Structures are given as C-alpha cells and as structure tokens.
C-alpha cells in the first residue's frame, strides 16, 4: 500500500534486528495503541534488550479527528465547541486561547469581570487537569487508591464547572467576546467551600506520596532529558519548569489579565519525574491562590464585551428590541465576520504552551486555523527521555509527560 502515497517518499529502510555491543538479541515491542499506560491510543515502538529500552519511536495519529479541517467549515463561534474536544481534560484553556486569538483579530475589549471569570475557570480546569494527571500517574506506578482520592476532588470541581456552565466536561464556557453566562447566584459560596477544603487535600496527597520510599525510588532520577533537548524539541509546560526554566506564558506574555494576579511560577531543578510531580503539585496550590484572588476581587459589570455584531444579545433585549433581534438573527444564521489578517496567540495550558494560529480572509469562517498543542511538542521529547531506561521507567516517564492524545492528534 506504500504506493498509495501521492509522492514518492524516500522512506527509511526498516530497522534490522540490531546487534548490541554485548551481542544480545533485541526484541521489538509494540507498546500500544491498546495499552493501559499510554493513556489513550499512543503507540510506541520499543526495541528492548532484556528490560532496557535501546530505541523508542512514538507513533501517533490514532485519534486524529481532523479538527483543523472541520474548523474551516464552521462559523467563528461554532469553532468554540470544537476546541473543547481538542484537549478534553483542560478544555477551558483551549476555549480561552481560541477566544483570545479571535478577539485579537477583532480588536475587542473584554470587560474586567469576564476576564476574571475566564481566569478563574481556566485555573479550575488547570487544577482539574493536574488532578487527573496525578491520579493516573500514580496509578501507573502501581498505587491504586490515590486515583480515587484525586477523583473525589475532581468531582467537586466538575460540579463547580457544571454550576457555572451547565456542562461537566465540554463546557464551551469561554466564548468570543466574553463568557457564555454570567456567574450563577451563590457561586461564591460554592467556590469558597472548595477553596477552603482543597489545600488540606493537596497536603494529603503530598503526605501519601512524599513519605513513601517506593514512590520516591520510582520517580527520583527517572525520565531525565536535558534542558537543551527539551527546548530544541519543543517541550513546554511543567516538564520544562521541572528543569528550572520559568517558561510560563501567564508570566512571560500575560494575557487575559494575568498580570493583575499574584502567583509564583513554580520551578524545580531536578528535571526528573519527581520534579514534574513537584511542579504540578505546587501549581495546584498557585492556581488555588489565583482562584482565591478572583473570589475576593471579582469585579461587577458586564460579562461580555459591548460588541453587538459579535456577541449575542441578552434574551431580554432580543425579545424587546428590533435591532437586537436582527443582530441575533445574523449572528446565528451566518455568523460574524472577522477582518482579514493573521494572528498567533500563545497561552499556558496545564500541559504547556498552547497556541492558535488563525488566518482570516474576512469571511464568517476561519480560512486556516492551526493549533499548536503542547502534547504534540512534548511527545517529541519522548524518545530521548526513555532510551536507555527500563520498561517500568518508561511508564513513569510517559505518565510524567501528561499528554492527552486528543491534544496530540487533534
């Protein structure tokens, strides 16, 4: 079937069973696409010598859904729901990035309340994503119970997300021009309850893991990859911060009002699985700090920009004012138009740098929408990380990367 490729590509010759220096025969192992620890349908072709990995080649694309192509056929606000499906564990970061990109093209001013709501919800989804990561990562290393403890808090988080947006996972809460709905009545109480409980829960995770010598043995010094390699290969997010590079778009290129918040960019210098765990754990605390600041300083006012051509009018106005009804009709039927141009906007998702590159030709649909997803870049760093490690270390290293296959394959 190779001839089916349109262009004659000089393909690399198939790797022969190689002789190692010690002469032992190597075994090729297909890890995935159905393997419990590849978190989805990642396939890694591993060459083993005993239990040591001599070569590893990730093979992605099993979850390719063609979202970029679909986006070209949807109107600007329909795309929002597609961005949810890219990284389904931190969908709000994708929403936010998309909204920011389009707003940059539209040159919209976003009211402060909307910005605060966006920040708060994005931080919620960051905690959510880190919790899922922590649970599954520890499960990979063999401890079952942690998974359930993490999902206990995640359940509370999802309840909050549902309270705000009506949806648990695919919230589509952040829209172009603001957020979908204003914060519901009584949200402060719900969020405050979570904010009060959660720090003790993080301490609990820390207690459970930090005092466990097996966990420390399994994570410390495992999954090392040099900083130069990481930057070259496009690894971002907690992995890079675990190596001591304070690359965090919230700080380096502030967006959506992050400059107003007081938080630390968590770094760690050990550059191993343990460091990434530390970074994510402290990031949960920092996110909580941001949420607390949102809770205390939530401004009043509108939750959507004053842009009638872009933002759907309120229900009340639509029913009473002719003009609003016309705008509503136009936005819903043909969508709003976005001026010609191209924009690149990067934000910090729980997994690293997420960026949308949008080319508009002035119509009501994106001409080209490219997603720079963190998992794709991070997975490039897999091979140098696990070559020379043991199978068990591969699992730990894979888990520490925290990739989402939907995010990788789009």
């Amino acid at each position: 079937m190779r001839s089916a490729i349109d262009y004659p590509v000089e393909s690399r010759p198939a790797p022969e069973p190689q002789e190692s220096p010690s002469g032992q025969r190597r075994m090729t192992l297909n890890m995935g696409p159905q393997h419990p620890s590849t978190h989805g349908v990642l396939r890694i072709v591993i060459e083993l010598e005993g239990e040591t990995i001599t070569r590893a080649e990730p093979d992605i694309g099993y979850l390719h859904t063609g979202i970029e192509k679909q986006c070209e056929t949807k109107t600007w606000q329909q795309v929002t729901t597609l961005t949810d499906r890219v990284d389904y564990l931190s969908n709000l970061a994708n929403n936010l990035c998309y909204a920011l990109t389009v707003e940059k093209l539209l040159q919209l001013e976003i009211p402060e309340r909307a910005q605060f709501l966006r920040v708060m919800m994005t931080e919620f989804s960051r905690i959510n994503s880190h919790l899922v990561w922590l649970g599954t990562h520890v499960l990979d290393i063999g401890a079952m119970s942690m998974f359930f403890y993490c999902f206990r808090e995640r359940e509370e988080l999802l309840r909050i997300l549902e309270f705000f947006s009506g949806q648990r996972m695919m919230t589509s809460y952040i829209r172009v021009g603001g957020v979908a709905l204003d914060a519901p009545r009584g949200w402060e109480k719900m969020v405050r309850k979570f904010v009060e409980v959660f720090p003790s829960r993080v301490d609990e995770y820390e207690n459970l893991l930090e005092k466990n010598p097996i966990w420390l043995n399994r994570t410390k010094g495992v999954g090392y990859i040099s900083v130069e390699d990481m930057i070259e290969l496009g690894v971002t997010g907690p992995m890079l911060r675990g190596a001591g590079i304070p690359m965090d778009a919230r700080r380096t290129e502030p967006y959506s009002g992050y400059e107003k918040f007081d938080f630390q960019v968590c770094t760690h210098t050990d550059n191993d699985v343990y460091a990434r765990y530390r970074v994510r754990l402290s990031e949960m605390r920092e996110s909580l700090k941001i949420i607390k600041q949102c809770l205390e300083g939530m401004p009043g006012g509108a939750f959507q920009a004053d842009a009638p051509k872009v933002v759907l009018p309120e229900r009340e106005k639509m029913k009473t004012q002719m003009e609003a009804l016309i705008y509503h009709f136009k936005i819903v039927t043909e969508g709003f138009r976005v001026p010609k141009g191209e924009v690149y906007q990067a934000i910090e998702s729980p997994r690293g740098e997420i960026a949308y590159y949008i080319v508009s030709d002035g119509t009501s649909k994106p001409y080209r929408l490219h997603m720079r997803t963190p998992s794709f870049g991070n997975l490039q760093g897999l091979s140098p990380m696990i070559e020379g490690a043991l199978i068990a270390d591969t699992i730990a290293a894979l888990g520490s990367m925290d990739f989402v296959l939907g995010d990788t394959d789009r």
Partner: protein
Amino acid sequence: MDFMILSLIKLGLVLFIFMTALAYIQWIERKVIAHVQLRVGPKRVGPHGLLQPLADVIKLITKEGMVPSHVNHVFYYLAPFVAVFFALIPISFIPFGQANVKIPFTDITTNMELTDLNIGLLLILGLSGMGVYGIALAGWASNNKYSLIGGLRSSAQMISYELPMALALVSPLLMLNTVSLRELVNGQEGFYFNVIPRWTIFLMPAPQILSFIIFMIAAFAETNRVPFDLPEAENELVAGFHVEYASMKFAAFFMAEYANMVTVCSVATLLFLGGWHPIVVPAIGDWIPALVHIGGGAICLYHGLVQPARKWDNITLPVFGVAFIGAGLLFCIPIVQQLLAPVFWFTAKLLILLFVFIWVRATLPRFRYDQLMRFAWLFMFPLALVNLLITGLLVAATTN
C-alpha cells in the same frame, strides 16, 4: 473409623471450606480496598454483595474460553493446572487446631489437619518453589512478548525471594528444634509472666520479630502481590503472564494466587504467631471468641435496627447480628469451646495477616524490576543472614 474414610471426610470438609473461603477472601479484598478508596465495593448481588463471589464463579465458568491461535497449546493448558496444583497441595499439611481431638457424640479422635508430616515445613517450601512453573510456563506458552517478560520476571523474582524467605524460616526452626508444623506450634505454648505469649516473635532468647518481617516481605514477593506484583504489572505488562488467558483458566491463576496467600499466611501464623494458641492466658482467652462474636452481632444489630444506613440494612444486618450472636453463644458451650477455640484463634490470626496483604495492596506503589532485585539481594538477604547468625549464637549460648 477407618483412617481412609475419615481422611476423605476431612478432605471434603477442608476443601469445601477452603474453596469458599478463597472466593470470600476476594470479596473481603474488594470490600476493604473499596472502603480504603472511598467506594462501597460490591453490593448489588445479595446483601452487601455477599453473593458476588458466587456470581463471579458462575460468570467465569460459563464464559467462553478464548484460546489465541498462536499459543503453544500443551503448555498453555498445562500452566493454570500446574499453578493451582502446587498452590492447593500445601493446604493438606497445615494444622489448624489441636491434635487428638475427640469429636463429640462419637468416639473418634482425630487431628485438626489432613496429614501430619514430620517434614511439613520443608515440603511447603519445596512446593512453593514449584509454584513458579505455572507462571513461567504461562508466560512462555502464551507466545506474547508481554507475558514472556512477565514469566521471566517472575522466575527471577521467585528464586531471589525464596532465599531470604527460607533463611527467615530457619531461625524459628533453630529455636524450636523441629520441622514438623505441629511440633513447631506446640513449642510456642505458654506465657511469660502470664502476659506475653511465648510465640516465636517473643520467644526468648532471640525474639524473631525481624525474621517475621523478612518472611512477610518475601511472602509478598512469592505470591506476586503489590508491591512486588511485577510479573502481572498491569500498567507495564498489561497483565503480564496471564494476558492471553480468559474464563476458568484465568480464574485458575487467580485462585492459585489467593491459595498461595493463604498458605504463606498460615505458615507465618504457625511459625511466628503461635498457631492456634490464644493471645492471652486460656482462662480469659477461651472466652474471647464468644465475646468477639457477640460483640460483632451487637454492632450489626445496632446498625441494622437503630441506624440503618441503606435500604435493606434493617433486614440484612439483624440477620447477621443474630447469626453472630448465635455463634458466640455456641462458643460458650464448653465442648464446642474446647473444639473450636483453637480454630478460631488460628483463623483470626490468618485473617489479620490476610488483611495486611489487602491493606498493602491498597496503599503501596509498585517496585521497579531492578529495585526489586536489589532489595532482595542487597537488603533482605544480608539481613536474614545476620538475623540467623545472631539467633544461632544466642541459642547456642543459652542451651547447655
């Protein structure tokens, strides 16, 4: 009565109780782990999921036995049988009560065990060493790379951990000067100052707490339990050696694992925890079984009648409560007390050790392969040797 017929009756009884217990250990494990993990565990089949093991067994038996086409058929079928065979045989040497018990209303006297071997412990060691063949063969015959790695891991792991295990066992043998399981327990009878039982872990001149711990750790490795469950590590090797097995063949491995658990826990009970001897002086100790049962029944009644948490609790819990209290009252009858109190103590100690196994499974992560080997050879093995040396010196210094 004829020796053969009596043996067959005992065999049937023990086998029935043991097999049921194996299924219910699974239920206990699921319940305990569920409660550790903030879940409720099985509760749909029967009250509190008590019929779940039955449902599981029916499901596993009636399930289609898938056999992949690429396996080595002879060894693929042989492996689960080997595993179960070597896991079940040791049960027949394990004494669980006193010798020469007279069964009430008859003039039969018998031992509370299937066979009394004067080399019982050695045989158990030998058979547990054979248990690895089931796993290694399954791993090899499945003709799957994951299962092959699992089989390799398990054979290396079993050889490595058998050493500290055997060395840990030698110290109590040294002190009690026998290898017969029954005599080992008999040697642990009595109390120091009427308080501290003369179990091997407290026995002068060299209390064997260290070798008890070493034995338990090695037992975890020998039974492939967390944190040493590398042969079947589901996150690395999918399911390791039994990845290609389904239905009863899979259940056979499962059963073998639990039977092995019961065996090692029994050995630990017999060797280190004084077997069927009570934890306090018999004058009090004989009444503890009744007390425990009546207490448990009272708790059940309270929760069932006063504070029913779930819908059916006001029916199911009182039934359990009455049953427990009835058992407790049964333990007050002198004949029954004499007959069953040792069995109660043995079972209680066994269950506590099994609970430790389950507890650890819910708590600890898994070792890495090289760490596991290093732990066995660089930590456990020298420690067991040193312990043996010290015990030997102390025993030599105190005798004659």
